[in-house]
C-alpha cells in the first residue's frame, strides 16, 4: 500500500509537471494570467508530491522492505538507521528521486518569490524548470524506478516489475545486500546532497536566462534576480567538491584527496563555468558588456550539470558499450542534445538584442582582466572535458581503451591555475574602465615587494622546486594584495569617520558584501593552494612489512608496529586493527590505529588510515590490505603529506567568504544614508 502511494505520488508529480508546462505556455501565448497562475500552482504542487514519494521510500529503506529491489540492493538488517535513511542517495534509482526532490524544492522557492516586476519571466521560468523536473521524473517512473518489486513466478523464477506478472507473488528476501562500504562515511553522507543541491540550484539562473532570451528582456535584470541563486548554487557545489575530497582522503586509502577521476571531473566542470560566470556577470552589471558570453556560460553550466549526472549515471565511463546497453544513457544524451540546441538557437536568434553597451577602453582594466580569467577557466574546462571524453572517443574510433590520468591533467592545468592565481592578485588592483601599467604598478609595488620577501624566506628555508617557489610567491602575492585592499579601505574609513579599525573593517565589508566576500574567497583559495602545493610537490611515501616491535621511518618520523587485533563486529564487519607508535626525533607522539574493515555482505574491504594531523604535515598510515595480515607481522604504507591541512582550512575560509558574499546586501540603502552624512557629502563634493 505504502509503496503504491510513493509510486502514485511520483506519477502524479510527473503529470502535474507536464500540465504546468502546458498551462504556462498556453497562458503566455493567449495572455491569460489565470493559466499562468495555475501553472505556478502546479509547480508548487510538485514539491509535496515528490516529498511524499521520497518519505515513502525512506520508510521502506528504514524498515527493510526487501520486496523492493532498490531497498534490497542498498540496505541490510545490520545497517544503522542513519545509513538506511541516507541510502536514499546510495543507489541509482534513489538518487534520481533525491535529485528530483531537491529540484522541486528550489522550483518551489522560486514560485514563492515576489514576481511583481518580472511577471513576464514567470511562465518561461516555469516551463524550463518543469521541463527539467519532468525529465528526471520520467527517468524515475519509466527507467529507474525505486519502487520496483521482486516477484516469484509460478516457475520459481524471480523477476523484477512494478506490477505483478500473471500468477506471481511478492518475493521478500530475509536480508539486503547492504550499502557499498565506501559510502558508509560521514563525508559521503553529506557530500552527495551538497553536490546535488549545487547542481539543481544552477537550473534556476539558467531558467531565468532562457526566460530573458524568450521575452527579449536581455538587459541585466535576469542577472540581478539570479545573483544570489547563482552564489548559493556555487556554494553548494563547492561544498560538495570539498567534502568529496575529504571523503577520498579519509576512506579511499591512497593518501590523496583528488585523483582526477572522471566522476570528480564531472562535478568540477560545472563549477568551472559557474565560477567564470560569477566573474563575468560583474562586467555586464558594471559595464553592460559580455551579454552574449554570460548567456553562453550559463547555458554551458546547465548542460554540464546534466552532463555530469549523465556521466555518473549512464555507465558510459566504464565503457561506451555499457552506455549503449543502458536505458538511461541514451535518454540523458538526447535531453542534453535537445536543451543545448534549443538554448543555442534562442541565443543566436536574440544575438542582436545582446549587443554590448560599453566599450573596452584598456587591456589592463578590471573587465579585461576578468575576461582573461574567463579564458583560463575555459582552458581548464577544455582540458577536463577532453580528458574525460577522450577514452570514449578512442574506444569508438580505434576500439582501444586508454586511460587519461593525473599526469595529463596536472601538466595541462598547472600553468592555467598559476595564471588564475596571478590574476587573483592583479585584478583587484585594476580599476574598472581604465588602468595603465603606471596606475597598476603604483598600486601593486608594495604587495609585490612583501610577497618577494616571503619568497626569499621560502628559498632560505631550503625549498628549491621551481613549482613550489612560483606557487608560494603567487600565494603570498594574492594574500598581500587582498589584505592590502582590506587595510587601505578600513584605514581610510578609520581616518574619515573616526571609527576604530575593527569597526571600520566590519563596516567596510558590510558596505559591499559581494566584493569583500569575494576577497575572503580569494584568501580561502590561497590557503587551499598552499595545501595543494604542499601535498603535490612534497608528498613522500614508503612501505614495508614489519614484525612486532620493528619500525619504518619517513621524513624524521619513526613508526613502530606494536600489535594487531582481528575481530568481528555486530554490523557485519571483520576488522583488522593495528596499533603503531609514532616518534619524531626521539619524541613520543602517541599511537595511531590504521585498520582494514572487511564487509561480509558485499565481500568488500575498506582501508581506514591512522592519521596524525597538524598544520605542518599529516602522517598517514595505512594497514595495506593486499598483503597477508597476521598478528605476528603486517605491511604498512606510510604517506607524509606536508601542509595538507591548509587545504581544509582554506576550504572553510572559502565557504565563509561565499556566505558573506551571498548574504543579503543592504548596500543601496546604507550607501545612500552614508552619502547624506556631512563628512561623506563633503568628501564627495
Amino acid at each position, binding site marked *: 500500500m505504502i509503496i503504491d502511494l510513493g509510486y502514485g505520488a511520483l506519477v502524479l508529480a510527473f503529470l502535474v509537471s507536464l500540465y504546468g508546462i502546458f498551462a504556462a505556455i498556453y497562458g503566455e501565448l493567449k495572455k491569460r494570467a489565470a493559466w499562468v497562475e495555475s501553472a505556478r500552482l502546479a509547480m508548487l504542487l510538485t514539491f509535496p508530491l515528490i516529498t511524499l514519494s521520497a518519505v515513502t521510500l525512506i520508510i521502506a529503506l528504514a524498515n527493510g522492505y526487501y520486496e523492493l529491489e532498490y531497498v534490497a540492493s542498498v540496505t541490510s538488517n545490520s545497517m544503522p538507521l542513519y545509513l538506511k535513511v541516507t541510502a536514499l542517495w546510495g543507489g541509482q534509482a534513489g538518487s534520481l528521486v533525491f535529485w528530483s526532490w531537491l529540484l522541486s524544492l528550489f522550483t518551489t522557492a522560486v514560485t514563492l518569490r515576489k514576481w511583481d516586476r518580472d511577471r513576464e519571466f514567470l511562465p518561461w521560468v516555469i516551463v524550463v524548470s518543469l521541463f527539467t523536473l519532468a525529465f528526471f521524473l520520467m527517468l524515475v517512473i519509466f527507467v529507474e524506478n525505486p519502487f520496483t518489486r521482486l516477484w516469484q513466478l509460478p516457475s520459481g523464477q524471480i523477476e523484477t516489475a512494478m506490477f505483478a506478472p500473471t500468477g506471481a507473488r511478492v518475493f521478500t528476501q530475509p536480508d539486503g545486500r547492504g550499502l557499498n562500504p565506501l559510502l558508509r562515511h560521514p563525508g559521503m553522507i553529506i557530500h552527495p546532497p551538497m553536490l546535488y543541491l549545487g547542481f539543481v540550484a544552477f537550473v534556476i539562473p539558467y531558467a531565468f536566462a532562457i526566460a530573458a532570451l524568450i521575452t527579449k528582456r536581455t538587459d541585466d535584470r535576469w542577472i540581478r534576480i539570479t545573483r544570489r541563486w547563482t552564489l548559493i548554487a556555487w556554494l553548494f557545489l563547492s561544498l560538495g567538491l570539498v567534502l568529496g575530497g575529504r571523503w577520498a582522503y579519509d576512506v579511499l*586509502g591512497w593518501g590523496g584527496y583528488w*585523483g582526477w*577521476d572522471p566522476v570528480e571531473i564531472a562535478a568540477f566542470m560545472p563549477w568551472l563555468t559557474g565560477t567564470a560566470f560569477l566573474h563575468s556577470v560583474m562586467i555586464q*552589471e*558594471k*559595464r*553592460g558588456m559580455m551579454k552574449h558570453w554570460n548567456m553562453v556560460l550559463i547555458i554551458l553550466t546547465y548542460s554540464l550539470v546534466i552532463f555530469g549526472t549523465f556521466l555518473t549515471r549512464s555507465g558510459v*565511463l*566504464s565503457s561506451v558499450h555499457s552506455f549503449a546497453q543502458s536505458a538511461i544513457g541514451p535518454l540523458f544524451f538526447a535531453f542534453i542534445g535537445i536543451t543545448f540546441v534549443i538554448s543555442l538557437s534562442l541565443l543566436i536568434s536574440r544575438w542582436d538584442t545582446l*549587443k*554590448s*553597451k*560599453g*566599450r*573596452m*577602453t584598456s*587591456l589592463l582594466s578590471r573587465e579585461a582582466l576578468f575576461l582573461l580569467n574567463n*579564458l583560463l577557466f*575555459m*582552458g581548464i574546462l*577544455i582540458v577536463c572535458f*577532453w*580528458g574525460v571524453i*577522450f577514452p570514449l*572517443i*578512442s574506444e569508438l574510433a*580505434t576500439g*582501444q*581503451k*586508454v*586511460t*587519461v*590520468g*593525473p*599526469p*595529463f591533467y596536472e*601538466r*595541462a592545468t598547472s600553468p*592555467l591555475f598559476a595564471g588564475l592565481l596571478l590574476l587573483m592578485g592583479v585584478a583587484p588592483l585594476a*580599476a*574598472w574602465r581604465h588602468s595603465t601599467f603606471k596606475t597598476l604598478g*603604483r*598600486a601593486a609595488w608594495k604587495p609585490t615587494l612583501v610577497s618577494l620577501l616571503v619568497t626569499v624566506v621560502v628559498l632560505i628555508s631550503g625549498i628549491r622546486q621551481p613549482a613550489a617557489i612560483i606557487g608560494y610567491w603567487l600565494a603570498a602575492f594574492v594574500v598581500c594584495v587582498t589584505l592590502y585592499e582590506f587595510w*587601505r579601505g578600513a584605514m*581610510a574609513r578609520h*581616518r574619515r569617520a573616526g571609527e576604530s579599525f575593527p569597526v571600520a573593517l566590519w563596516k567596510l565589508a558590510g558596505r559591499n558584501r559581494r566584493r569583500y566576500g569575494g576577497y575572503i574567497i580569494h584568501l580561502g583559495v590561497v590557503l587551499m593552494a598552499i595545501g595543494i602545493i604542499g601535498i603535490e610537490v612534497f608528498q613522500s611515501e*614508503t*612501505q*614495508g*612489512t614489519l614484525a612486532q616491535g620493528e619500525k619504518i621511518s619517513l621524513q624524521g618520523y619513526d613508526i613502530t608496529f606494536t600489535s594487531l587485533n582481528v575481530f568481528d563486529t555486530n554490523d557485519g564487519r571483520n576488522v583488522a586493527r593495528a596499533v603503531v607508535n609514532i616518534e619524531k626525533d626521539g619524541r613520543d607522539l602517541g599511537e595511531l590505529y590504521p585498520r582494514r574493515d572487511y564487509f561480509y555482505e558485499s565481500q568488500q*574491504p575498506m*582501508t581506514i588510515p591512522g592519521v596524525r594531523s597538524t598544520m605542518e604535515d599529516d602522517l598517514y598510515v595505512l594497514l595495506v590490505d*593486499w*598483503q597477508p595480515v597476521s598478528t605476528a607481522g603486517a*605491511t604498512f*604504507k606510510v604517506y607524509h603529506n606536508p601542509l595538507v591541512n591548509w587545504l581544509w582550512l582554506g576550504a572553510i575560509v572559502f565557504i565563509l567568504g561565499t556566505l558573506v558574499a551571498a548574504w543579503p546586501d543592504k*548596500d543601496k540603502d546604507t*550607501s545612500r544614508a552614508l552619502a547624506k552624512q556631512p563628512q561623506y557629502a563633503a*568628501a*564627495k563634493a
Partner: protein
Amino acid sequence: MKRQTQAKDHTRQMLIYTLVILAVVGALLIIQTPAYAQSESPGTPTDDEVNAIAKQLYCPVCENIPLDVCPTQACAEWRELIRLKLSEGWGDAQIKEYFVEQYGARVLASPPASGFNWLVYIIPVVGILAGVFLLYKAFQSLRSSETIDEPEGEIQSEEDEDDYIARLEEELRQR
C-alpha cells in the same frame, strides 16, 4: 592607408605563427617524457621500488585505480610480477612496455603520444589558443566599438559602488 593594411596583415600573420608555435610547444609540454632509467639496486627489490613503477600503471581490470593502491588479488600478483622483473634487472620503461604489450595502452596513466592518441595532447592546446584568438578579436571589437552609449543608470551604479574606494585611493595617493 595601404601601409596600415600591410601592418594589419603583418600583425595577423605574426599572431597566427605565434599561435601555431605555442600549440606545438604546449602539446609537447603536456606529453610526459618516458623514463628510461634502469633499476640500480640488485637483489630483492623493496616495496617502495615496486610501488614506484606500480604508481605509473593502472589496474588493467578496475576503473581508474593506480596499480600501487588497487586492493584486488589480481593487482597484488601484478605487483609481484613487477618485483620479479625488477629482480631480473629490467628497467622501468621495459616493465611498462611489457604491461602495455600484455594488457594494452590503458594500463598507462596517460596515452602514449602516437597515432590517434596525439589528439588528446593537441586538442586542448588548440582549443586554448582558439580561445586566445577569440579573446583578442573580442578585445579588438570591443575597443573599436562605436556604441559608447552606456546607460546613465549603470554608470551611476558603478560610481555608487566604486566611488568609495576611488576616493580612498585618491586620498592615499595624496598622503
